[in-house]
């Protein structure tokens, strides 16, 4: 059925690039897959959404990227004030301009107050067009009641989705997709390892592109192409390392930084090892496919996840201990906080992590960005100064 199976490594990357570019405004691939797979389309707002449940209910989940410089939210600004970040405006603009008309449902979770309010603004204005689903993830995750509650929330989700597709829930189908999802995350983790171990062998924007593709493609298709691409990357001749600073990026957990920004940071003297945006794609980790009730497995994977998430409070997690270990494991020499303009959660994480970074003398700098930024001279100057101060000896 698909011509993609015969693609070579570089061709797969080009295909991923096309898929990603299409997932901002045009969504032609999504429409095509909607036909091909006979599935309904669901767009979900960052950060985490239980894709496996959507698939199990016959719904193809697509992560919404926002506009990222490709659309001007001129109408959406009538709903959201100037002091809100970009992604809710550009996503609302996509809704208003009809770009998302092929979608059947839009899902939101309790990541921040703006996203929360956006969900219900869309419901009030376009409730007849889309089913708006709002999930509240628990934060009291040391109590048994939290897991009980979250299971009810997932069952509510299943119920909502079955009303869209008419499909009945079958735990074995969910189990199948949990296995596929684990495979997808496995591929992504291996790619990430290559980048972390020998960063000169892969520019960060290449890694980022593959991760983005994994968020907006049918999981089986990605697993097929992704594993081939992984083999290709493993077989690629080695590049020569140059003197650059191994850098971890924090803060870009929801609003997507323009690719150009990553390029500029690497050009300024960095090897970017990881950023929150891609970290979150594999955050949920391996979900136990052998659990008796696969929904319990989904719940456990979220509730017991020991890795902090900017938007999730967890009573048992110590963020200071985490960040120290994180940069150590990455063997990083610098941290850049990439914070979206007007994004509060990102700024709060920065406030907490910088204390820990100070304690281990890890150099860091905070750089603001916006989806729609058209020039990068100020971030460039900041990044260059930062790396000049680490590289130059005078």
């Amino acid at each position, binding site marked *: 059925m698909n011509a993609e199976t015969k693609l070579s490594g570089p061709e797969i990357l080009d295909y991923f690039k096309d898929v990603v570019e299409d997932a901002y405004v045009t969504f032609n691939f999504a429409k095509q897959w909607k036909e091909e797979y006979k599935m309904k389309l669901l767009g979900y707002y960052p950060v985490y959404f239980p894709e496996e449940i959507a698939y199990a209910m016959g719904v193809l989940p697509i992560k919404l990227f926002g506009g990222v*410089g490709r659309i001007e939210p*001129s*109408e959406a600004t*009538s709903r959201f*004030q*100037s002091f809100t970040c970009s992604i809710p405006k550009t996503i609302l603009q996509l809704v208003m301009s009809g770009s998302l008309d092929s979608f059947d449902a839009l899902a939101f979770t309790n990541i921040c107050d703006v996203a929360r309010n956006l969900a219900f603004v869309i419901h009030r204005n376009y409730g007849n067009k889309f089913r708006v689903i709002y999930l509240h993830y628990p934060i009291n995750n040391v109590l048994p009641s939290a897991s009980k509650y979250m299971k009810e929330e997932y069952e509510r989700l299943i119920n909502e989705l079955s009303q869209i597709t008419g499909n009945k829930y079958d735990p074995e189908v969910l189990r199948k997709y949990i296995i596929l999802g684990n495979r997808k995350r496995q591929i992504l983790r291996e790619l990430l390892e290559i980048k972390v171990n020998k960063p000169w062998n892969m520019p960060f924007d290449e890694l980022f592109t593959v991760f983005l593709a994994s968020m907006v493609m049918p999981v089986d298709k990605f697993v097929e192409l992704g594993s081939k691409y992984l083999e290709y990357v493993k077989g690629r001749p080695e590049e020569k390392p140059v003197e650059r600073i191994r850098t971890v990026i924090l803060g870009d957990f929801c609003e997507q930084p323009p690719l150009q920004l990553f390029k500029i940071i690497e050009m300024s003297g960095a090897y970017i090892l990881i950023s929150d945006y891609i970290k979150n794609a594999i955050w949920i980790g391996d979900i136990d496919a052998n659990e008796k009730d696969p929904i319990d497995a989904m719940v456990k994977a979220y509730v017991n996840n020991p890795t902090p998430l900017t938007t999730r409070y967890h009573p048992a997690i110590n963020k200071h201990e985490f960040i120290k270990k994180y940069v150590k494991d990455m063997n990083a020499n610098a941290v850049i906080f990439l914070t979206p303009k007007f994004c509060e959660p990102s700024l709060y994480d920065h406030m907490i992590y910088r204390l820990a970074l100070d304690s281990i003398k890890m150099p860091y700098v905070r750089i603001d960005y916006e989806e*729609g930024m*058209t*020039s990068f*001279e100020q971030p460039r100057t900041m990044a260059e100064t930062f790396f000049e101060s680490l590289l130059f000896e005078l």
Partner: protein
Amino acid sequence: MGMDYVMGVDAGSTYTKGVLMNEDREIVALDVTLTGANINNAAETIRRKLLEKSGIKETDVKLVVGTGYGRYIIRFGNIQVTEISCHARGAHYLFPNTRTVLDIGGQDMKVIKVNERGDVVDFVMNDKCAAGTGRFVETIIKSFGLNFKDANDLALKSRRGIALSSTCTVFAQTEAMEHLAIGDAIEDIMYGVFKSVITRAVGLITRVGLTPELTFTGGLSLNPIAVKILETMLKTKVNHSDMTMFAGAIGAALYGVEKLETEKYIG
């Protein structure tokens, strides 16, 4: 008995505009001056100029109506009305079929929905973070060592406009300079400057809803490129003339005439 006159003074942040109107709602004189550091002096100058131009006796001017940011300062002013109400009236006077008014001033940008009598039905103004539009265009043109005419000529030559922040004028200005630094053409940057302003305006217009005819008032309406971009973006004809920058002052004068009439009617 002789003709009664009213004066409308629009003390804006950049320019002070004045109109002298007779009781039959005919404009007998109008003039404009830089507001500068002392609004009162500017208003005073305008008043003198209008009287000289028209040769009308001060005593025949029965009422002075102030509008604009400086409206409460004009010492010789009798009543004050906000520029929103005045621009509505003024635009309606200049183009009677006006139902939507776009005013881009130095500080604020407004879109006003008016009824067949020129009353304000609804209005929206720029977000707090999108203030200073008119000034932004002026300062950026100056900082490049150009004037409005050059800017228009350059922008009209542009093939591909450059996208600039359409909210914060300070960001937009920095971006414009940065585009210069990375070697973009000045034509395209100037186009981008006007484009970002008009994009902001179109956003506001969609909030009120565009009921034709649309009349474009305020200093920026004198820029052909601004009008051109506005018309292409809205796909509709836009009313504008060399009089539209006086809309606020004309509206103020009209309020004065109404006041006179009601007083006459009562007394």
